[in-house]
């Protein structure tokens, strides 16, 4: 199956939303206007934006620590996300979790977790619910997280139980400085699917069309009750953490080329196909900026939590 024009423009729009938001996050962090632990997905925008065309709004989405793009792409509350980055009471987790614990259950999205790999097990649990309720789970993590044992336990269990889960690996060949050469055996993460006799494939993770065609094939397989699949998307992340960005502008200049940048590349493609025009590009970019501005305004005008708020919600009812 292929993406139609409208879908592709939606994807493009989401990529722009994520890009502008993540850039702003880096910028504001550098200025000291926002604080905390933040892991941008700059350079990887194609994956979340495309997956949003693969799952339904009420399907489940469970990601690892680098979940901001997925949160946005699923249509989770963008204002609340920005309020969270500003540590406000109106934040998606009331200003408690910060960027690495973004979640929005009204959109079935658990897009934060900071113990790398643990989300694979949680996604597998979500799979039991999805199986009962006729939904699917899309589970996403970095290639580094596939070296945790829980990845293996999860794939094995999901396969035996024929759980409806698409396991997606964002392969950026980087784990806090280490490359796969130093840490990871096997030529491709997708090969790990062979261990369980489930479908596995590697696609160009900077190309929405490539991601989509394999992902939608796998989702059909999954929805038909045949169990999980493993999709590896090759991409590149431009920055590990907001605190690691030294000279972001230079980096961005260098990589804003169709070879490295999934957005620039998608623009070339959309233009060649006559889908994207100057006017449309401008409109899309404006739209992204407007959304961002609205979210920033919402966040900045939101109240800070009261110090004592941090004592609530340890349990669902006071004990």
């Amino acid at each position, binding site marked *: 199956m292929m993406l139609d024009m409208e879908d592709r423009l939606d994807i493009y729009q989401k990529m722009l939303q994520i890009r502008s938001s993540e850039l702003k996050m880096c910028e504001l962090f550098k200025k000291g206007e926002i604080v905390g632990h933040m892991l941008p997905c700059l350079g990887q925008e194609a994956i979340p934006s495309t997956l949003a065309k693969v799952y339904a709004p009420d399907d489940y989405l469970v990601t690892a620590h680098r979940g901001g793009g997925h949160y946005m792409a699923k249509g989770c509350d963008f204002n609340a996300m920005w309020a969270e980055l500003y540590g406000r009471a109106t934040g998606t*987790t009331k200003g408690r979790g910060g960027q690495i614990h973004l979640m929005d259950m009204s959109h079935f999205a658990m897009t934060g977790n900071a113990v790398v790999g643990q989300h694979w097990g949680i996604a597998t*649990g979500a799979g039991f*619910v999805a199986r009962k309720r006729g939904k699917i789970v899309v589970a996403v993590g970095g290639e580094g997280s596939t070296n945790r044992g829980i990845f293996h336990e999860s794939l094995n*269990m999901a396969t035996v139980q024929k759980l409806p889960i698409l396991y997606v690996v964002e392969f950026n060949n980087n784990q806090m400085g280490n490359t796969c050469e130093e840490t990871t055996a096997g030529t491709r993460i997708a090969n790990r699917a062979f261990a369980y006799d489930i479908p596995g494939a590697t696609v160009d993770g900077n190309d929405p069309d490539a991601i989509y065609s394999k992902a939608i094939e796998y989702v059909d397989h999954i929805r038909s009750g045949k169990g999980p699949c493993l999709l590896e998307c090759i991409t590149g992340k431009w920055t590990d953490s907001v605190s690691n960005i030294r000279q972001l502008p230079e980096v961005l200049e260098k990589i804003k080329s169709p070879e490295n940048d999934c957005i620039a590349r998608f623009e070339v493609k959309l233009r060649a196909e006559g889908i994207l025009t100057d006017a449309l590009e401008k409109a899309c970019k404006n739209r992204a900026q407007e959304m961002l501005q609205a979210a920033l305004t919402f966040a900045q005008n939101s109240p800070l939590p009261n110090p004592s708020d941090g004592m609530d*919600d340890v349990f669902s009812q006071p004990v």
Partner: protein
Amino acid sequence: MKNMKMVDAIREALREEMLHDEDVFLLGEALGGVQGGSFRVTKGLDEEFGKARVVDTAISEAAIGGVAVGAAAYGMRPVVEIMFGSLMPLVADEIHNQAGTLHYVSGGKINCPCVIRTCNWMRIISGPHHCGNIDALWVNSPGIKAVAPSTPYDAKGLLKTAIRDNDPVIFLEYSPLYTKTGDVPEEEYFVPIGKADIKREGKDVTIICYATTVGDALESAELMEKEGVSVEVLDLRTIIPYDKEAIRASVEKTGRVVIAYEGYKTGGVGSEIAAFIAEECIDSLIAPVLRVACKDVPNPSNSILIENISIGKREVIDAIRRVME
């Protein structure tokens, strides 16, 4: 009322809750089939409810824990089993970092209603990897509740409460208790989490205990009665959050405390209870707060050696005599 074994009371609680709510499901190793759980707790439930609701898994404790969290977060009520207590460290992150923080870190928006059952094999000759004491593992974990019933009545009532609770609950079973019998009502009932139970009233000494040590305490109380010492037996039932008011009231009454727990002494559940008393009830105390607990030694696979490091009536009585001095 009917008289039943604890193993049957636990199974009855599982069965009732599975009938009551179709989102309740069981997951663990060898729960179904011939095995029916290592201690036959889940025997027959797979036949009644099918394999989608009594899920046998691979030896994958971390995934079992992950499933508990994920399935709970997305709205079901998993009751998972970790075959035995010594294996709980394999699921420590899923308990401490995931289940324990989820409600909080989601801004109170995601509940995590899962129950993690496990069986302690204390007082059995299976060595340190089977018979380790793990009751204190989550006392230092915000967001986690843990219960350890001593009677069939409490076990059934606490398990039903735990399954309906919207927070993660560790449910501790003890192999020597499975065959202990007791009265259980015919009609439905629940035992609250966080409430201790005075299993015997007394006025000279309070024994704070739970699970296996409740029996030791009651028998010791009986014997001490003959020596003219009146012993109150306070069964915590819930290890965390423990019942501070009940402890305070009893200590104020007796002024003497012995805490008996079948775990390693140092850093055990009883250490927390003793610290609470030293902090908040010290004015009522007329004797040191004694802890009767296992020695800080890995559990050997040899009855001669076990005898020497574990506890029972003798150690409890000893401690009562000391606080009465």
